[in-house]
């Protein structure tokens, strides 16, 4: 049986072995300690404990267990090297939410080590990747480790025909701006509003109440509705990466198709026709329930996107990103502080403004800081310091604002966006192109040499490495065959960025398909949260 880890007594089960399957985190160790200590010693048969760390054993955790006096209770302490977890056909994630914090705040590069391990496993399965490009310090480290590991294990040179042509390693810190902007794709919005965890989303149940059943809704579901989201669902695959404004029309079109399909039963005259109709029923039922679900989700999201507050927030974001008034104290942000909006939202906007201005003027920064600590409490000095250290919030030092140059050179902003039938990737943020995706796009065509100047403005080195392949395995490109690029985001990636890359994959003349890997799927909120100082809950 599999149980979720929670403190207290372990559920009674007549088993011999109990295996704890955990991430190496100290909080979890405390729970396990509690579990083990409460285990009834007198019971027979005695249950044996084992612990499996994912992805690595951690000395720190084991010592912690030892401190609590329970380390000896575990017969086996092993690790399960699960580095990259497949999330979808084209998406792998390590789901290590602290990766960014560890790399940039604490200079702990363990997650990079795991990322490299994951890449080695990937290469063992899909062949050595001949070309490696990268930008940023972490990317540089990973590339070095890959080459080093390859040399240390000469046996890993395999004879598998390479699936990937190129690996592109990107540091999150070359593009800190993108995760701060509100994602405007369907999937991105679901994540921004409700948070997608391990491809599951929990939604408020009201809209999902089964209709027609029972009178007066005697038992409305109170549990949140849990839905799995991935491309296995045909409808979801179609709409997930669309701009939310384009989702409505797709849904209504689908609704028409489905009801038309159901209508066909009236035309089915012969037994053969009826049989054919019945055979299609399961598929149609599935399509209908999927449509019902997504219509409900779209309604939920619509309620929020049409709210005044969402609109105001988005307006300010878009102003910043297009370079308007980034150098003074923003009224809307001040108002939000005065009305005590959630602190995370404030930090979101201020960081965004800072990124769009290559740092805030000292006076502006001090003003914001003062307002924040006065309204939300002085202890937030610590969080503000973390954000500064990670580079999300900073005083403008050079006196020069690089962002407009970068924006113009890379064409990151477009005023007129076709959200319904996009012909470029501007649609994912309704105007803004994620810098990260832009780099990937330019790498494929015409190459990074054309943007050397801009690359120099971004932090960290950019580089190109080659891994030699045995001559037999070198790919002979056929006409019209697409190149496959694996893009690895070190420090996290947003759903909107994924959407943009998928859009590029599908472009007819693109010539490149993208597979995405990352340390963690993030959005602005989860990301900033991971950087915030954990404050003790107030004692009342």
């Amino acid at each position, binding site marked *: 049986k*599999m149980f979720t880890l929670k403190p207290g007594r372990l559920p009674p089960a007549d088993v011999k072995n109990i295996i704890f399957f955990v991430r190496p985190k100290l909080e979890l160790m405390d729970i396990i300690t509690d579990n083990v200590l409460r285990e009834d010693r007198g019971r027979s048969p005695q249950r044996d404990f084992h612990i499996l760390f994912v992805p690595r054993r951690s000395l720190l955790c084991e*010592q912690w267990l030892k401190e609590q006096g329970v380390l000896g209770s575990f017969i086996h302490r092993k690790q399960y090297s699960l580095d990259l977890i497949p999330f979808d056909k084209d998406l792998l994630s390590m789901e290590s939410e602290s990766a960014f914090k560890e790399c940039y705040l*604490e200079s702990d590069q363990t997650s990079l080590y795991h990322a490299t391990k994951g890449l080695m496993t990937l290469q063992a399965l899909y062949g050595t990747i001949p070309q490696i490009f990268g930008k940023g310090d972490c990317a540089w480290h990973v590339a070095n480790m890959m080459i080093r590991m390859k040399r240390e294990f000469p046996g890993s040179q395999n004879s598998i025909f390479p699936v990937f042509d190129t690996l592109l390693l990107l540091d999150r810190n070359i593009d800190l701006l993108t995760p701060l902007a509100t994602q405007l794709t369907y999937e991105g919005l679901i994540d921004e509003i409700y948070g997608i965890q391990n491809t599951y989303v929990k939604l408020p149940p009201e809209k999902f109440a089964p209709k027609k059943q029972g009178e007066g809704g005697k038992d409305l579901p109170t549990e949140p509705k849990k839905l799995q989201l991935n491309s296995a669902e045909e409808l979801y695959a179609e709409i997930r990466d669309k701009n939310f404004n384009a989702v409505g029309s797709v849904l209504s079109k689908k609704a028409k198709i489905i009801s038309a399909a159901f209508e066909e039963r009236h035309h089915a005259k012969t037994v053969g026709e009826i049989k054919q109709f019945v055979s299609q029923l399961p598929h149609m039922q599935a399509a209908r329930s999927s449509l019902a679900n997504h219509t409900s989700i779209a309604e939920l999201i619509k309620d929020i996107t049409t709210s005044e507050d969402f609109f105001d927030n988005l307006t300010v974001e878009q102003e910043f990103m297009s370079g308007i008034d980034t150098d003074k104290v923003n009224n809307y942000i001040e108002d939000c502080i005065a009305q005590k909006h959630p602190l995370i939202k404030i930090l979101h906007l201020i960081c965004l403004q800072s990124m769009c201005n290559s740092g805030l003027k000292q006076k502006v920064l001090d003003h914001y800081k003062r307002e924040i600590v006065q309204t939300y409490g002085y202890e937030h000095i610590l969080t503000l310091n973390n954000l500064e250290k990670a580079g999300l919030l900073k005083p403008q030092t050079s006196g020069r604002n690089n962002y407009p140059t970068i924006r113009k050179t890379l064409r990151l902003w477009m005023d007129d966006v076709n959200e319904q039938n996009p012909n470029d990737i501007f649609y994912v943020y309704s105007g803004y192109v994620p810098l990260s995706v832009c780099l990937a796009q330019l790498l494929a065509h015409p190459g990074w040499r054309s943007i050397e100047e801009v690359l120099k403005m971004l932090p960290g080195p950019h580089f190109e490495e080659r891994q030699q392949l045995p001559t037999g395995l070198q790919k002979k490109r056929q006409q019209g065959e697409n190149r496959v690029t694996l893009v690895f985001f070190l420090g996290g990636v947003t759903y909107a960025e994924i959407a943009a890359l998928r859009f590029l994959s599908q472009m007819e003349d693109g010539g490149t398909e993208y597979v995405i890997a990352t340390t963690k799927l993030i959005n602005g909120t989860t990301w900033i949260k991971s950087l915030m100082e954990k404050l003790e809950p107030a004692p009342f």
Partner: protein
Amino acid sequence: MSRARADEEEYWHSSKFRAFTFDDEDDELSQLKESKRAVNSLRDIVDDDDDDLERVSWSGEPVGSISWSIKETASGTTGSPEGRDSSLQKGSSSYTAFPKQVSSYSLSSLFKGEYHHIPYGQMTLTDTGVKNYAPELRRPKAEYKDYSSDWSPKDTVRRMQRGKVCSLERFRSLQDKLVLLDEAVAGHDGNVITAVLIFLKRTLRREILFRELEVRQVALCHLIHFLRETGEQKFLLDLLRFLDRTEEVALSQYREHLNIQDVEKRREFLKGCIGLPFSPEDTSHIQDHYTLLERQIIIEANDRHLEMAGQSEIFRKYPRKASILNMPLVTTLFYSCFYHYTEAEGTFSSPTNLKKTFKIPDKQYVLTALAARAKLRAWNDVDALLTTKNWLGYTKKKAPIGFHRVVEILQRNNAPVQVLQEYVRLVEDVETRLNLATKYKCHDVVIETYRDLKDRIQLTAYKCKVERGSAEEEKINCILNNTVRN
């Protein structure tokens, strides 16, 4: 589309892409088997299990041969990573600062570092604690084989990366230890780096450890992180002080206050923080934090007494929901505007005193006071708050936050229309004023605005929105008739 589905199926069922579902209903046993199989197959790839394979060092000689180990140790004394790693790690920042003067330490100092179990004055305290943290470093008897074999630093690190138990005790000299540390750092595996650091922390004198870490930034960061996680505050502060990272020392110390529950103790602690070397703007925040808590303690004691006595009307009518202790400044201001509005500036709990002490900007003050007084429905106070007298004695209404915000706040507190419309009237922007007036049914304001705009059409249209036969309707009619005559 059925083809796509088939592809999907194949994708999810092929063993390479075993999807993980964390649902309880799934057949866990088969999944576990699956993962075990995956683990086993992975081992073949990443974990080619030592021993029978001949190891070859980068220069091509088999690892373990005598000549190799001599070279290994020899290079260790002269900054080995530079020599051996340069081909790979060029430009990697962690190596640029490798110290050449390692061997200049006298033998005696090395020996001192070695005998860790001999208590050295100030070291004893922390060191006993450390032993508990490094149990893995002691060699379990069962792993005798590991102990006997003489692993090089590199192999040791590699073994540890694979999660094997390794004895580090045999790295005796400072040089050996540093080589070990550098190897660990080169592996980028935080787990191993931490393990080595714990070993060094236990076996090296503090000053030496600090000095060596100063030139090894990566290892340093790991140690700082480790100390933070395990709560060895004193050691951490010593380290940061040694490194002259004073601001970090200050912040790190300040962070401690979060762990203190008792307010009196917390106040004392914050007092101690004031002199710490924060950045200039943080210094003033910390000072304010202390002053605020000090105030809150006084106010809290006072008010709790008042509330218990039941003498004060305001506390009887609006019992306090929570204590004011540890609340943010603005919340405190709200509280004081709510319960202590009329107090003279001299008392600690009066709003004006708070405003002065903490230099609260006008905007913030008006906003907070307004919200508090509106909540009490003290409309006279609201009026007074927004009224300013100039030197000639004329009064004028002024709102630093803009009157539309005033209206919003009042409306949220269910202000009567008479009160509301007085402020709606003062909204500068005509468009906003009309919007607000219409929204909150301040008919007079709507009518007057249309009159001033000379907008007959809108005014006529508005007639249907007011009650028939009411004073407002009459007013509209009057205006419409008037303008006809003009």
